[in-house]
């Protein structure tokens, strides 16, 4: 095992600001934020309340509080962007041709934008009573 005991030499290299370096930073900072945001959401909705007590009235009641709407907007904005950018990172491990990299980036940007807009319209618009 001594062969694996490599001590890395730490040296600071200034990173050039690029889309990829900002995306790398975004994954770290949004990750820190998502731990409380997503854990609280999952513990309340999936574990404590549970799917058998969730219906249209429950959503209407929750969104009657402005704070929960803001909470859900933050969830939507950060989780989905983190997730789609994560998918982009995985895909770019298998795609290296510049033209295909551009295609992946644009398709994912469009996918992210459309789903985020649909979700945001619903949170802002609120529950429609049938």
């Amino acid at each position, binding site marked *: *095992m001594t062969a*694996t*005991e*490599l*001590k*890395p030499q*730490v040296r600071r290299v200034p990173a050039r600001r690029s889309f990829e370096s900002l995306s790398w930073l975004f994954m*770290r900072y949004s*990750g*820190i934020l*998502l*731990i409380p945001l*997503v*854990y609280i959401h*999952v*513990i309340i909705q*999936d*574990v*404590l309340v*549970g*799917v*058998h007590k*969730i*219906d*249209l009235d429950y*959503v*209407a009641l929750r969104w009657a509080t402005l704070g929960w709407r803001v909470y859900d907007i933050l969830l*939507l904005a950060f*989780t*989905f962007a983190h*997730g*789609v950018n*994560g*998918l982009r990172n*995985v895909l770019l491990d*298998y795609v290296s041709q510049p033209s295909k990299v551009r295609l992946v980036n644009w398709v994912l940007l469009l996918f992210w934008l459309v*789903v*985020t807009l*649909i*979700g945001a*319209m*619903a949170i802002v*618009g*609120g*529950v*429609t*009573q*049938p």
Partner: protein
Amino acid sequence: MKRFFDIVLPAALRYRGKGGQVSFLLHRISGLGVLVFLTIHILDTATVYFIPELYQEAINLYRNPFFQVGEIILVFMVFFHGVNGLRLIIFDLAPAYWEARYVPRSQFWVFVISLLLWLPAAFIMGRNLLVYTILGG
């Protein structure tokens, strides 16, 4: 896709990377799995505004026992992805600690902490599953 199955899968199985490889794969699989659910979840929740009649149909699907087992697995994936992600962030912030004697230990604790967070959640969700299926609510 053909390339993925021909190259990545056999290589992943042959490469004996121990804990590191397991957490790398689990981080990706959990991330992609949660993203699939998240996309469906944003769209099903959006029906409350666009097509409210359809929302109850979506919820009824989630109340299916198969989906509920999936939900219990999903919660583990969320917990694991968060704890393991935090480990990666800490190492990225303090790369001096990113060395052979700390990494396997940190991976072990990620599994322990994720399981400790998940077990009570899985117990409550599993009990709900039994109450609403066998005992009929």
